[in-house]
């Protein structure tokens, strides 16, 4: 099956959900999510079946990279994330309904829920297009598709001040970063005379290139990208938006959006890194960004008491490690080094997907039974629900980078890369970051395992739907499996 069918199927899925929502009278609109979940599962399976066309002539391939297994991997991330987000959305739907439902008689009690399941699908299609985009235009449009979908989804709880506030903040800063990105695109187009990344790379490799102008364009683009991936100092939106957004959407933002941001970043950085005149400066600035991000993400997380915000800082922290990998880009591609930043980042994001989604999944499952998102609400969880506590423990251990979990290999590869490219400064800060990580992640474990449950909590057992349970189990198994056998993920990168 040609690869570009995948996005079409996903878009079609979204349309089906919308149509069914509009024209079929459903008692429980949550079954709409099943369409998405099953459909995405099929798409995920199809990912292993795609064919690349023999000929890449034709207009289409100007915008869509071919023979690109990295893109495929990121499409996989997008699909899987969306799938799990839909699973979460089912659990989370009572809260969504509370915030948007229409009290009037006659209205469907679940009005507005169908769109909630359709939008992630469209966003997913956008993310998949981003993974394959190899042209400034397709990068821009796919990126904006995703961004606009996220504006809506973040602000989805339209009676909830927090959600709307998050929406507004994301909107304003997102538009700001889009402005810079567009401005940067304009400059890049101006100095290279092309929108095609391959042609841009050729143009930038020209030794007569004026480095100032190129670096200016680079700076502007980097701003836009740093915003997407949450690198300091363009990370400030993350904690607030993550906190305010509906939890499944936070998960989506934290994994899907970030992963797509990274694939775009990899694509856009490649021409600059390939230019001998620019290489050093680019790496230097990436190093600075990485150091700042590592410090801010990890240190600011230390005093954090709200679990959702903590995960936000953690997402910044992990962005730090990822940027660190970027900054370890080799001067010349090929040669001895084959543990390329691309592979490392892809692996890291794969691992990050598993562990972050696991954490968020536990969080959404609990959201209806425990009072809030503060860390203290998780006190004594081990006594109330050993399974959820264990799941969260695995997730935290993996995020902290304890060996034999997927998260460790992520850090391991990043550190290996840094050692190999002799980025000692980065190593030191990576070390500080990882050390701080131990503290704040395990703090959750302390709450769950070592503290008594809060006085006012009811001791009622927490129910978990079978779907959630299976998803949780699958994630746990994958984390542990990838922790012993990283080939599980690395094999997919190809």
């Amino acid at each position: 099956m040609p690869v570009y069918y995948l996005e079409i199927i996903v878009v079609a899925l979204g349309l089906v959900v919308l149509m069914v929502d509009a024209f079929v009278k459903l008692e429980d609109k949550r079954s709409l999510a099943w369409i998405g979940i099953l459909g995405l599962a099929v798409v995920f399976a199809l990912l292993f079946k795609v064919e690349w066309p023999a000929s890449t002539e034709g207009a289409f391939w100007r915008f869509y990279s071919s023979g690109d297994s990295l893109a495929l991997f990121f499409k996989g991330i997008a699909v899987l994330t969306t799938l799990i987000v839909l699973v979460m959305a089912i659990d989370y739907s009572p809260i969504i309904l509370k915030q948007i439902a229409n009290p009037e008689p006659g209205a469907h009690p679940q009005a507005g829920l169908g769109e909630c399941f359709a939008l992630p699908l469209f966003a997913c299609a956008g993310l998949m297009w981003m993974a394959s985009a190899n042209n400034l235009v397709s990068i821009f449009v796919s990126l904006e598709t995703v961004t606009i979908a996220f504006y809506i989804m973040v602000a989805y709880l339209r009676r909830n001040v927090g959600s709307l506030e998050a929406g507004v903040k994301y909107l304003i800063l997102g538009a700001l970063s889009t402005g810079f990105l567009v401005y940067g695109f304009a400059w890049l187009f101006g100095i290279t005379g092309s929108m095609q990344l391959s042609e841009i790379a050729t143009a930038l490799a020209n030794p007569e290139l004026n480095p100032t102008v190129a670096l200016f364009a680079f700076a502007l683009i980097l701003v836009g990208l740093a915003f997407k991936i949450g690198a300091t100092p363009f990370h400030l939106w993350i904690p607030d938006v993550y906190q305010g957004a509906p939890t499944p959407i936070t998960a989506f933002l934290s994994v899907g959006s970030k992963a797509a941001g990274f694939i775009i970043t990899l694509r856009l950085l490649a021409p600059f890194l390939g230019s001998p005149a620019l290489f050093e400066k680019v790496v230097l600035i990436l190093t600075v960004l990485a150091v700042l991000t590592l410090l801010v993400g990890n240190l600011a997380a230390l005093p954090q008491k709200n679990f959702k915000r903590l995960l936000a800082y953690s997402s910044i922290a992990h962005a730090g490690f990822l940027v660190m990998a970027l900054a370890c880009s080799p001067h010349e591609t090929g040669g001895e080094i084959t543990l390329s930043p691309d592979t490392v980042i892809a692996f890291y994001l794969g691992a990050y997907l598993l562990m972050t989604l696991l954490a968020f999944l536990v969080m959404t499952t609990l959201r209806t039974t425990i009072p809030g998102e503060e860390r203290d609400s998780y006190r004594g969880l081990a006594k109330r629900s050993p399974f959820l506590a264990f799941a969260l423990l695995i997730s935290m251990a993996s995020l902290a980078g304890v060996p034999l979990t997927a998260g460790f290999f992520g850090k391991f590869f990043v550190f290996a890369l840094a050692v190999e490219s002799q980025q000692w400064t980065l190593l030191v800060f990576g070390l500080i970051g990882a050390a701080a990580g131990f503290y704040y992640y395990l703090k959750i474990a302390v709450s769950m395992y070592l503290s008594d449950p809060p006085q006012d909590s009811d001791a009622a057992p927490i129910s978990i739907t079978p779907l959630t349970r299976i998803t949780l189990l699958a994630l746990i198994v994958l984390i542990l499996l990838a922790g012993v056998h990283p080939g599980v993920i690395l094999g997919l990168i190809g």
Partner: protein
Amino acid sequence: MDSDVNTLAWAVLLLPLVVAATILLGLKRWSGLSALVSTGSALLTLVFCLFLAGDGNETVDTAAYPWVDLGEHLRLTIGFQLDALSRGMMLIVTSIGFLVHLFSLGYMKDDAGKSRYFAALSLFMFSMTGIVLADNFVMMFVFWELVGVSSYLLIGHWFEKPSAADAAKKAFLTNRIGDFGFMIGILLVWILTGSIYFEEIKAAVGGVGNLALLNIAVLCVFCGAVGKSAQLPLHVWLPDAMEGPTPVSALIHAATMVAAGVFMLARVIFLIEAADMAATVITWIGALTALAAALMALQQNDIKRILAYSTLSQLGYMVMAQGLGQVGSDAGMFHLYTHAFFKALLFLGAGAVIHACHHEQDIWKMGGLRKKLPITFWSFALGTAALIAVPFTSGFWSKEAILETALNENMTGPYILAMIVAFLTPFYMARLVIVAFFGPTRTKDADHAREVGPVMWVPLVLLAAMAVFSAYGFLSGPLLARGRADFGHLFSHFGLTAILSLTGLVAGVAAAVYLYRGKSKDPLHIPLFRDKFYIDELYLGLVRLFQDSVAAFLDFVDRYVIDPLVARFPAGLALTAGSFLRVFQAGNVQSYAFFFAIGVIALIFFLIL
């Protein structure tokens, strides 16, 4: 024949260990049986040792047990050096050991921890045997330590008594300090000569280049002897060790533990001979110990303590002798041999007295025991005679030998000190005998004293005989490398030494008789001597100052400096930084945009700079 010797030696070594283990594992509940087994084994080892001694005086190679093989440079083995020195020493050790076992059967009859006592006694015999038979330094050190621990168990036998428990600890720790030096010494000798085996060291010691280090090495080795033989400044444990049961005191003081130090020096006399400076130091230390201990003995009231200090004093003689070369060493061993018998006699006699007086140990609360305990008295008196070197008793010959050697070696200073001791010893011993055995009985306990049973007095009588005659050739000949006869040339003329020591003897006894006859209270009052020159107090102060308060201080440092510095400070720094970073996260989107813009400016600036 050699294989027989081999078997015998191993049997001598291992029998007590097996007995100790058996008692510990199986016989604990049958205390009487334990005691008998232990005593029987002591007798058996004595017999074995007699066989060994009868085997002749030549050195025999025996099979060694490969204990640890650490590559080509160091193979630690358990093997025996069976020569005249060790055979003789073994005989002393086992014979005294057997007698102490025998005596203990009576003395410890009703003790609750009888099994434990005899197990420890056997362990002690095992350890002591190991020291004597050792053919290398490491093996000697191994058993050296084991002697330490078994003496710990014996001294602390009555561990409910805080004083006993403390004394045991003190003995062990003081010995450990000595062992600290000993181990360094062993290591230094090893790097200098390349071996830990006595015979190999003897062969290699001539080739040592770094003589200064050799001197230090010998002094370090000597430290071990200072600890075990309770020389200045590590003598403090020995008087306290009187807290143990009296037979233990006899064992430790007479022939075994304290003798081990002297024996060890005799064993490595070739090293001492090669290190002049160290030899001088050893002589001086010995002489000073002899004098200091004698002075302390003057003012003690506890019968066992007086004997303890006299032991110290006599050990001083022996150690002093070790610094005088091969001849001196043999003289020292000679004295060790004679001393073993009369001191065991004195201790057991004291034990009998104490036993009879219902565990009263203060001589001023005794008196008139001459008539109540005639056998004890007479044997005690013979022992005293030997100790104060009444001519023709065993002690006389050995002491003269040491003094003569000192004179011959031109060690005038130590010689003078030793002569003063020769006056002091008769004085305090006479004081003891007069106060305890003569005059009226002073307390009810002394009044009710009855002669002890034969199990206890038979050893006394045997020992009394030895105290008088042991120096003579028919007894000492087979036992010693060099006995009285070999020192004949020293006694060939009635010289300065004889005159001086006889004068000292007469003067000492006379002074004691004059001062103490018929007194019920001590007419002399010298706090400095009574309080042992305040050395214990000094040590206590030093320990408090340099150990306890430094420890407390370091504990404080560890809690409030190191831990905060290594752990809390970085953690706090990170937390503070984290809290500071929250300042940027003020919730206002416009301020975010502002930082965003600043970031853009900075980014562009650095990139196009």
